[in-house]
């Protein structure tokens, strides 16, 4: 009995002691640590490498942010989760989803644009019936009905083809129908589907149609916060952006290390595909205005062209107030030379 009591006492003492240590150490660190979360638009992959690099290397911790990265998935709307406060930051679909959310009155603000140019292209077989955009007429085309369809419509209108004259179908997950030539034109993101198509058809057997060549731009992968966060915690946003930019610069400077970090989290991913993805993402993130102004630059001209396009096709009831929806003041606190690669 006495023995047992001794043991219990020893445990109690140890517990108190541990607690004491914990309490001693915690306030120093917890004082200025803020909990925050980043909701991605998709599962962990190289498309988001910079954020994971920043997390792994403790860049968010250095800025006093205790960041959790929450992967996204199909049927999850990042704008929704950020607007309700379930997540602090969001890497959302793109200018299209930001405009749609603002149009519906969701209180979200874009604080940075990741992909400066349209990340997707339209692809046809080089030896097939489609050689130019004008050839799309009467052909079978698959695309995503989440914004890409309007880019396609705009491209067709530019060459005088009525979008109704093309057989445009919603695109499923797989690009197999295109590979098997059941479809003439397929939509492909440069960092994902294009890799699969290159692998299965051969890079030199494909024709690519780039929206920018038709004067249409559709920047995607937008960083968003709620209006409340933007108003009440501007310094948190600046710190988050600073750490994220640092992470992305590291990711591009040492791609192997970045891929290692991603592969450690998702070991079933195909390494070669992830390497391709990171290279493509680098091109997209440093294109256009980002080549001079640096990562996450908000190019009001490109964003404005997407705004007009969506309003023209009636996706949003009227053009959204650009200055309210896109706030460049946070990213602009980081000098361009620090954001350039």
């Amino acid at each position: 009995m006495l023995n047992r009591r001794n043991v219990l006492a020893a445990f109690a003492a140890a517990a108190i002691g541990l607690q004491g240590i914990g309490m001693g150490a915690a306030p120093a660190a917890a004082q200025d640590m803020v909990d925050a979360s980043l909701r991605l638009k998709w599962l962990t992959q190289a498309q988001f490498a910079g954020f994971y690099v920043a997390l792994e290397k403790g860049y968010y911790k250095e800025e006093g942010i205790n960041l959790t990265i929450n992967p996204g998935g199909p049927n999850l709307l990042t704008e929704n989760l950020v607007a309700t406060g379930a997540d602090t930051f969001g890497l959302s679909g793109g200018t299209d989803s930001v405009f749609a959310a603002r149009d519906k009155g969701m209180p979200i603000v874009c604080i940075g644009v990741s992909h400066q140019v349209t990340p997707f292209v339209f692809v046809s077989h080089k030896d097939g019936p489609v050689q130019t955009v004008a050839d799309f007429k009467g052909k079978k085309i698959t695309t995503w009905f989440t914004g890409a369809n309007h880019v396609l419509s705009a491209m067709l209108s530019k060459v005088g083809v009525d979008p109704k004259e093309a057989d445009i179908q919603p695109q499923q997950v797989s690009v197999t129908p295109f590979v098997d030539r059941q479809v003439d034109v397929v939509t492909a993101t440069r960092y994902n589907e294009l890799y699969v198509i290159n692998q299965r058809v051969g890079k030199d057997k494909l024709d690519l149609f780039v929206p920018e060549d038709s004067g249409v731009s559709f920047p995607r992968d937008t960083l968003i916060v709620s209006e409340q966060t933007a108003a009440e915690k501007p310094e948190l946003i600046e710190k988050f952006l600073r750490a994220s930019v640092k992470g992305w610069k590291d990711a591009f400077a040492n791609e192997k290390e970045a891929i290692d970090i991603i592969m450690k989290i998702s070991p079933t991913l195909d390494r070669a595909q992830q390497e391709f993805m990171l290279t493509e993402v680098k091109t997209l993130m440093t294109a256009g205005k980002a080549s001079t102004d640096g990562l996450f630059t908000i190019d009001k001209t490109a964003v404005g062209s997407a705004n007009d396009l969506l309003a023209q096709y009636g996706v949003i009831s009227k053009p959204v107030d650009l200055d309210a929806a896109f706030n460049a003041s946070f990213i602009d606190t980081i000098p361009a030379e620090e954001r350039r690669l």
Partner: protein
Amino acid sequence: MTGVSTSAATLPVASTGRVHAAVKPVLWLALGLLAIEVLVMALEIRPYYLPRPSAIAANIMATPGAYLAGLWRTFLETALGFVAGSLFGVLMAVIFHRWVTLRELFFPLFVVSQTIPVIAFGAVVVLWFGNTLFAKAVISFYISFLPVTVNTLLGFSSVDPRQVQLMRSFGANDVQILRRLYLPAALPQLFVALKLASSLALVGAIVGEWFGDTTGLGVLLLQAMYNENVVGIWATIVVSACLGMGLYSLVSLAERKIVFWGGEQ
């Protein structure tokens, strides 16, 4: 893959001692896999349509840790949702059976709840519970309780009213009648529902993981699907199937132990 199915198949051995009966399905499985392997090679089926079983096995063995971690995580979510769903299902059946007014009021709502697609419901669950294990268990729970309620009610209704009257004449109270008569009488029906619910709970957990997570079979499935990694899709299907078979076998084993009088097997 054969490792897990072996352990599932050896379960009856422990209870019946028929080694032969346990070895036979494993042999058939091995033979079947060999046949598919040969057919895929002989007919030159492209790997995007059906990869060779050996390629699937090699894929799992390349990153066994990821699949094991996924299996464990999904198992936890399923088990939590299944147990909670089953208990809730039985409880609601008891309440609906005892108070008919409540059944008339709320049972239609139960049915309506099942017509809401899990996809719509899942987004709300993520808003409420975040990317937690608990959130997935809630989805699992949500799609597994109704069959339990319905089948338990069905089991209750099979009780002969004269038996109830007899027990009452001996002075048995409601709780005693429930424990000694209604619940045992409903057990065979209940186990039918539990087997169904175990599969549904697994589906719920996997779908739940499609709302953003880092580990789980659902995540692996999604990742493989959108990267057009067909071998990866099949590998995840195989692992999920093993988990499903394991859960089903566990419920069956419990059934054999508990409903020893059951005439089904």
